[in-house]
């Protein structure tokens, strides 16, 4: 390729590069910079606050902040239950789709993708109302079977949110796993059948190992989303502020520190910490899942 042509090619990427610098690199740098400072009250607090360099004090505070670490633990525990459950259901449904005629599979696939078409906030609004004892149909349904369930009770908030996330996410994950399943060479099944393998055996020993890559990917995407969960608990908080407090998830704490407490420096430090945790979690997940292959 001629030299001048190369530079013309680079020119096509210039708008993006500029935007990336201003909308990604600069904000991250700014957040890291801000996280190294603290507002300090001078003397008796009469002279107003002054800005002082604080080194890693904000980070130390964050790591020992029981509300922040507690929220991370809460979200991680929840992720350990909800993500495997959702992926298992998605996998089973993808295997089911793979087992029916392609005409039926297409119809079911479209129906099962309907929840994914709904914006996350709207999905949360719908479910909050479904759960609502005043307007929702689930409370009368519970009465019918003798359950006296309260979806907004402290012990029920996570299952309620988990159900909402599962409902919203199954279709998308199923489609990714299903399209991976389509890549399994069909001759493998014939060969296995000739050898006398049952359909469930084929699913377990051929299909599932073949879609491992898709499962790792959907798992990773779910973990990244889950550590940043905000929309659903924020919406629950609008309905039941007494069960979902303002430090329910890491992002909720960061948002509150920045906009309600006005403590940008601390919020910046916490968001850097969250990014590091996210990076480490993704890395560990990849290591764990790729080790099993060997």
């Amino acid at each position, binding site marked *: 390729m001629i030299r001048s042509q190369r530079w013309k090619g680079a020119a096509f990427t210039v708008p993006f590069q500029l935007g990336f610098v201003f909308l990604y690199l600069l904000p991250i740098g700014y957040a890291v910079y801000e996280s190294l400072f603290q507002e300090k009250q001078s003397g008796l607090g009469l002279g107003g606050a002054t800005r002082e360099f604080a080194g890693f004090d904000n980070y130390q505070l964050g790591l020992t902040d029981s509300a922040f670490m507690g929220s991370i633990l809460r979200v991680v525990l929840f992720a350990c239950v909800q993500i495997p459950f959702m992926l298992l259901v998605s996998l089973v449904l993808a295997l089911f789709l793979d087992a*029916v005629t392609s005409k039926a599979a297409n119809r079911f696939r479209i129906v099962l993708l*309907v929840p994914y078409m709904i914006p996350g906030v709207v999905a949360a609004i719908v479910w909050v109302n479904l759960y609502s004892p005043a307007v929702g149909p689930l409370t009368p349904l519970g009465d019918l079977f003798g359950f006296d369930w309260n979806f907004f009770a402290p012990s029920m908030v996570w299952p309620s949110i988990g159900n909402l996330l599962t409902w919203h996410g199954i279709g998308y994950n199923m489609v990714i796993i299903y399209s991976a399943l389509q890549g399994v060479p069909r001759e493998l099944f014939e060969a296995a059948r000739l050898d006398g393998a049952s359909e469930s055996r084929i699913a377990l020993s051929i299909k599932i190992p073949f879609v491992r890559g898709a499962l790792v990917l959907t798992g990773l995407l779910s973990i990244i989303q889950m550590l940043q969960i905000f929309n659903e608990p924020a919406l629950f908080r609008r309905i039941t502020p007494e069960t979902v407090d303002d430090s329910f998830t890491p992002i909720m704490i960061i948002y509150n520190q920045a906009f309600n407490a006005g403590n940008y420096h601390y919020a910046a430090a916490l968001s850097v910490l969250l990014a590091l945790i996210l990076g480490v979690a993704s890395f560990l997940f990849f290591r764990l899942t790729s080790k099993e292959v060997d």
Partner: protein
Amino acid sequence: MATTTTDSPKKSGRSGMPPVQRITRPDTASRGRGGQRFILLGLILASAYSLFPVWWLIVAATKDRVGLYQSNGMWFSGMHLWDNLHQLFTYEDGIFLRWTANSFLYAGVGSLGGTLIALATGYGLARFDFPGRGVVFACVVGSFLIPIALLTLPLYLMFSEIGLVDTPWAMLIPCLINPFSVYLAKVYTEATIPFELLEAARIDGAGELRIFFSIVLRMMTTGGATVFLLAFVNTWNAFFLPLTVLRGEENWTLNIGLYNWTGKTLESGIDVTSLVLTGALLSIVPLAIMMTAMRRYWRSGVTMGALK
């Protein structure tokens, strides 16, 4: 991972994304009847679970307040959809229509600009070998891991310093740079634009800009439509960014408006549940229409996620 999807764009040649491959399965006949029934039952139950909230929402949007609180949630009780719509459109001087227009503005204009930038970048990355290309691509992929709070909070501070907070620009500018769109555009370019074609155009004396606008963009309509659709949906669904950078309700999106109304009963005692539900239903309609109309593109885009 590219090898695990049948509709990988790499195989699709010049015509863009292929329709999802249909595979005939003669083997299903050999399965036991009971097994098939069990599988169908499972799929039907999953479909019912997926659809019943939407059904409930449609039914709820047709009820007046009495019906909403007292009748069976899963079936109709009177037809008050028009009253609800009228109420929704006139509430607080038609603020709902304003939010709808805002959502269309941010998602439409933002995604259009973002798609154009992404296509140019994807083309540059896929078809030119310039120094720093690897760094740009590493930035694209690396940014998938950045939590939204880490970007949004400093962006808010920066925007407030230059007076952009609480203006439409605060939503539009971030939409212009979308690394995932760039990633998709690169993959689509690799699949649809042959090197030989570019060489031929150059020999014919076409300039690089002309090649991009009159050949590349035209051949990328399918890929471009997918990128646009996914970006549109993404912006339409956005929540954390608009919640942070838009303070006054005249600039809000549908999501923020509906979120705000949801807690109103508790905050001020004014019951707007009926408005929230009708509004929620309406806010799905544009997405549903767009996704159905562009189903082919969308499906390939969803499975493209598997290539990441």
